[in-house]
């Protein structure tokens, strides 16, 4: 079916009065890994929030469909239930809400045919082991007092538990040490190897190419100033690694 995929067409979005996205075209196919790279302020996070329905981000034009369904017409919770997931760069801390209860509520919401409690616990334990997380996490309040690395692991745990159709990872790699980075890579890898997650499409937003050493990207996009200016294979990430964004900027400057 031609409508398959997370299809973003000519997407424009603004924050307050400032236009940030100036026409994004991008298709993430099921089971594929797309990397979206770009310098700070290029609009990467705005794309992530616009896709997932953050109230502060206003879509002013374009379409987004998820396997044919109009995503922009849905409130944030229904986008998640349609199969869209966002790993936050700065996840919110919610005191008083236990991780286990939150995960259970989220799983129930996204997959209403959900597992009986015992199987759900088993699923959690398995996924936590993959992520090298202590089971005491389950009794802690959501992100409350968590270190940066713990928050990112919890985001990956949610990814694993919810097994979305499409996952947008917003700088999940930022601020992580090598061990945490490997855990993130393992979490994505094990989801892709599972029945639930074998068709999950990824949009991995990153500033640096190093996460791509742990998750191989099929396609790499470069975003500058609210537009995708270049799309290529994994070699594009290597180029960013070597040269930074300046030569790409010069190149597109020359074209424009």
């Amino acid at each position, binding site marked *: 079916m031609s409508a398959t995929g997370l299809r973003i067409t000519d997407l424009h979005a603004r924050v307050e009065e400032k236009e940030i996205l100036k026409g994004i075209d991008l298709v993430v196919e099921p089971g594929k890994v797309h990397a979206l790279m770009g310098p700070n302020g290029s609009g990467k996070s705005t794309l992530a929030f616009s896709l*997932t*329905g*953050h*109230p*502060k981000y206003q879509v002013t034009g374009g379409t987004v469909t998820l396997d044919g369904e109009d995503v922009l017409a849905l*409130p*944030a*919770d229904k*986008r*998640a*239930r349609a199969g869209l*997931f*966002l790993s*936050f760069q700065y*996840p*919110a801390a*919610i*005191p*008083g*809400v236990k991780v286990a*209860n*939150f995960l259970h*509520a*989220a799983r129930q*919401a*996204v997959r209403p045919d959900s597992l009986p409690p015992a199987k759900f616990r088993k699923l959690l334990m398995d996924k936590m082991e993959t992520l090298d997380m202590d089971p005491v996490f389950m009794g802690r*309040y*959501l992100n409350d007092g968590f270190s940066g690395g713990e928050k990112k692991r919890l985001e990956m745990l*949610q990814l694993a538990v*919810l097994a979305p159709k499409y996952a947008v990872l917003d700088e999940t790699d930022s601020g992580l040490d090598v061990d945490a980075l490997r855990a993130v890579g393992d979490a994505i890898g094990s989801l892709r190897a599972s029945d639930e997650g074998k068709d999950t499409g990824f949009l991995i937003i990153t500033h640096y190419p190093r996460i791509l050493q742990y998750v191989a990207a099929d396609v790499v996009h470069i975003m500058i100033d609210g537009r995708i200016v270049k799309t290529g294979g994994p070699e594009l990430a290597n180029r960013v690694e070597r040269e930074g964004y300046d030569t790409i900027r010069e190149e597109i400057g020359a074209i424009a």
Partner: protein
Amino acid sequence: MPSATLAGRERPGRYWKIDLDTLELPAGDGGTVEIAAPAARGLIACTLEQAENDHAALLARVYGRTAAQSTKFGAMTVAQRGPGAFVYIPADVSVDEPILITYRGGTACYPYTVVLAERGARATVIERVEGGAGTTFCGIVEVVTEDHADVTVASLQLLPDDARAIATRDAKPGPNARVAWAIADLGAALTVGSADARIEHEGANVDIAALFFPRGTQHVDLITTVDHIAGHATSETIVKSAAAGRGQARYLGNIRIVKDAQGSLAHLHDDALLLSKTAHIDSVPALEIAANDVKAYHGATVGAIDAELLFYMESRGIARDAAERMIALGFFEPAIARFPTESLREEIREGLRAKIG
């Protein structure tokens, strides 16, 4: 100081429609008390009447020894004389299971609870009030502990929405002793509560946790006061409140540290969550500190549910109303955690869930 009197800038503004100074209450028409206590060596848990007859000397060590009777509503409790309970925990006795005191009232009930813990004694008291439509409760709880004793008094009030619940609570912890108040006011049209402690001995520790949640047209007025008269003692006060509909509340958190109470450590933290545009909570932390070598902290927040928290939950598929409910319930958790027994905590959560709707 009559703790129900509103003074100076705390005087009711346009939101506060009930004048506590002129509030009149119906005459008492009795009421009953049910006391359930576990077996423990020398423990006395009986009615106040029985204590007056059989344990007058013990009772005299607590009854009227705090400032509770000198408040406006405390004086009414004494004058109207309803059912009462007396709990005495002898030295070095640790009562592991909570002592349950339940008052049942008719039109107006004026209950009086007295707790005496001797040196090294430990106990938890859970007090409830139960009544029908339109009932009024106006009670006192007095606690005196000797050195190294540890007493927690928790109260849960789930009266009908047209009831009035007034409670005056005062405690005097002994040297190195602990007194904890845990107060959950979820029912009644009007709740007027105080939870006070006067620290006259070094090494004492006072914990106050309170939560309340007016909705509809409910009013809550709560005052907590910790007086640090002796130094090298600690107090921690945590208050969590929410208001929905046209619910209104005022919380006044007093911490007073006198000049000679050097080395005191006092924390006061209160958070108020507004769940509707017409709800109102006045939150007034009031610290008077005359000593120079003390640590006193206070923090207060008032606000609606954070939009970022909501979006985070919604982005996980949780519908907005369910997300709001989870966040609001979670908001109370740090105060709920201070209550004894999981079944009481669960009952409080259940009461909150019903109010959040």
